[in-house]
């Protein structure tokens, strides 16, 4: 309520014709983008909020900024590098654009345009940088990836000076799969059972567990590794091994999985559960036959997202498993390397081939994470909340249709569509 109250005085004085639907209801005073050729037909309202002057102002400010930046960079002060030049151009562009707009518009409109420029700049900086990080990794990985042996051999017999057609990361791929497999075997049952506990048996104890789990999402991964190192390895004498790494990864994954499963389980519509209880089902059979199947896709998403997080953890594996160049299929003894740890070790070497191997491993790891993510998206696209929302829309649509058809009897047959739109 407070926000809408403050909105009124702030904006009532700043009526402009930019970016607001209100502009379309009043007769426009500025130039239009499109002049209707047929003057006899009733004037059709232009729904676009773009005008010729806007486009011209943008282009003009862009050209002026480029030219001015070029003059400054070449004649006045030495500006080194493309990034600096880009930043200078954007700053100049914003200033010139604001100046142009202020010729015809009032204060709030100018501020609106400047903020639009800033928001676009920030967003494109972020998106381009993020895409660039991925592209950069893949580009640097290109020397290593075409060699098929990169995926089938380990590094036991390949030294740092060997060319890329000997040695590979099969041991790291296998290590990652074994470690994440063990971690999932621990976290899936424990995580989902705990999430069911949090939603099915609410109470002070469940609230306390939820608080602790939320706190544990803040656990730094290195501390999880240190914990396992100090307990399992240092105190209980477990070997530095894949199992220890899997335990450390489990501690990282468990809070994430519990939290997201908890959210998904809470989305299950109460009507479904109540229908089940109404039929005399026990709580157990309601959970097993109604709650879990309804939220299956959401739970799968939770599992896959936690997996993607766990698979990329480096520091717990560094502490608890250690590095090896050879294939190790036994998780209970001896070091077992994972993909992120292999990257970390490869790029420590000054040799270009080793660095290329590191980037190749990074590309493989990213491919794995992206693959998991895409699967999660495909499965998670259809969660119960969306399903319920769709059914609600469907129902409203049908009832609106019935009301409408009753009101306009004569046109019903002509306009009624067969299926509701999505």
């Amino acid at each position: 309520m407070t926000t809408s109250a403050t909105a009124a005085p702030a904006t009532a004085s700043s009526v402009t014709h930019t970016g607001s639907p209100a502009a379309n209801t009043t007769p426009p005073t500025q130039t239009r983008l499109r002049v209707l050729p047929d003057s006899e037909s009733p004037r059709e309202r232009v729904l676009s909020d773009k005008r010729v002057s806007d486009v011209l102002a943008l282009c003009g400010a862009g050209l002026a900024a480029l030219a001015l930046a070029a003059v400054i960079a070449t004649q006045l002060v030495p500006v080194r590098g493309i990034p600096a030049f880009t930043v200078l151009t954007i700053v100049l562009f914003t200033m010139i654009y604001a100046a142009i707009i202020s010729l015809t518009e009032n204060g709030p409109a100018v501020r609106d345009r400047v903020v639009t420029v800033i928001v676009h700049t920030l967003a494109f900086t972020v998106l381009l940088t993020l895409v660039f990080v991925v592209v950069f990794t893949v580009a640097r990985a290109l020397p290593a990836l075409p060699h098929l042996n990169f995926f089938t051999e380990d590094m036991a017999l390949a030294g740092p000076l060997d060319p890329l057609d000997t040695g590979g990361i099969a041991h790291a791929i296998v290590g990652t799969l074994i470690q994440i497999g063990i971690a999932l075997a621990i976290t899936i049952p424990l995580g989902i059972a705990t999430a069911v506990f949090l939603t099915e048996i609410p109470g002070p104890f469940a609230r306390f567990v939820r608080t602790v789990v939320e706190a544990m999402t803040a656990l730094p991964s290195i501390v999880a590794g240190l914990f396992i190192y100090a307990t399992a390895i240092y105190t209980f004498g477990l070997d530095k091994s894949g199992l220890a790494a899997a335990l450390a990864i489990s501690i990282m994954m468990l809070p994430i999985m519990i939290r997201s499963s908890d959210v998904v389980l809470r989305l299950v519509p109460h009507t479904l559960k109540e229908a089940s209880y109404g039929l005399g089902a026990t709580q157990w059979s309601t959970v097993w036959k109604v709650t879990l199947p309804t939220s299956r896709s959401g739970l799968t998403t939770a599992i896959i997202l936690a997996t993607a997080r766990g698979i990329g953890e480096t520091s717990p594996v560094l502490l608890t498993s250690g590095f090896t160049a050879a294939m190790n299929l036994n998780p209970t003894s001896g070091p077992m390397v994972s993909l992120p740890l292999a990257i970390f070790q490869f790029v420590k070497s000054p040799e270009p081939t080793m660095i290329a191997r590191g980037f190749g491993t990074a590309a493989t790891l990213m491919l794995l994470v992206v693959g998991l993510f895409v699967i999660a998206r495909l499965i998670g696209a259809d969660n119960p909340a969306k399903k319920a929302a769709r059914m609600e829309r469907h129902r409203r649509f049908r009832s609106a249709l019935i009301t409408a058809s009753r009101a306009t009897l004569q046109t019903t047959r002509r306009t009624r569509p067969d299926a509701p739109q999505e």
Partner: protein
Amino acid sequence: MDDVISPRRLMTKRETADRVFRGGVRASGTVVLLIMSFVGIFLLLRAWEALQVSGFSFFTTQAWEPDSGNFGIAAVIVGTVLIALVAVSIALPLSLGTALYISDYAPIRLRKTLITLVDLMAAVPSVVFGLWGVFFLQEKIVPVAQWLSTVLGWIPLFRVDGVDPRDPLASATVYTSSTFIAGIVVAMMITPIMTSIMREVFMQAPLGEREGALALGSTRFGMIRSVVLPYGAGGIVGGTMLGLGRALGETIAVYMIISPVFVIQPHVLANGTNSVSALIALRYGEATQMGMSALMAAGLALFLLTLVVNFAASSIVARSRSGAST
């Protein structure tokens, strides 16, 4: 007394399957609780030995020589906080702009793709960002650092000792491996998660209020300032704190970039810094029992720091208007 009619006692009599089920899930909840509290308790127990040796000087000593009893987290914790602050101060405007772009400026058709892209970026392993920082950013950022230290060198934070800003041939190595570079890499890492949280909150801003502001003649920015930002304030603060928590705990990307020093390094652009997690990754292998205990104490301090930040974040988000759903 017996003839007083008391209400029928209501009680649920559960079947065996239900009792087993409830016992089972309650047990798993207890197990999770035990594991999670065991982490904290065990850290404290193991750290106790070191904390007793060092006493209060644990928080004031800069050196890290646990075997001679001369150790403390003053240098590493300052480094950790500085890296995280640099990261957050870069990531905050970036993620705020990106979140607003997705929620209010982007074409509707693009919106879903952008959301997926940002969420996907949040899942990219940190070691990949570390690679980017070491092999790309490190050399490209040196001119920027040089320029910053020349222009803003009068602020102590940006001063770099041992260089003459007027000397164009000065060595660039004084600017590498700095808090600034580590901060940028961590910023790129936490930007997606911060964007994701802010975007979610911004998109929940009530449509009626948005349209009300527009109908009163507000510009798009006027609408954002008077409706979206006040509504999403909790999300902005909460998302930032969450990013801060993640930045504090980041290990491997920081470890790859910095060159560790054990003095308080307040100059963010200068070579050499340190962080708690990098310290642990650096020293765990050669640690004696005392060294291990000291590392545990450092880890505990880091954990408590992230815990406080996280709790502050969740309480701010929960108290805000948009908080109930996030």
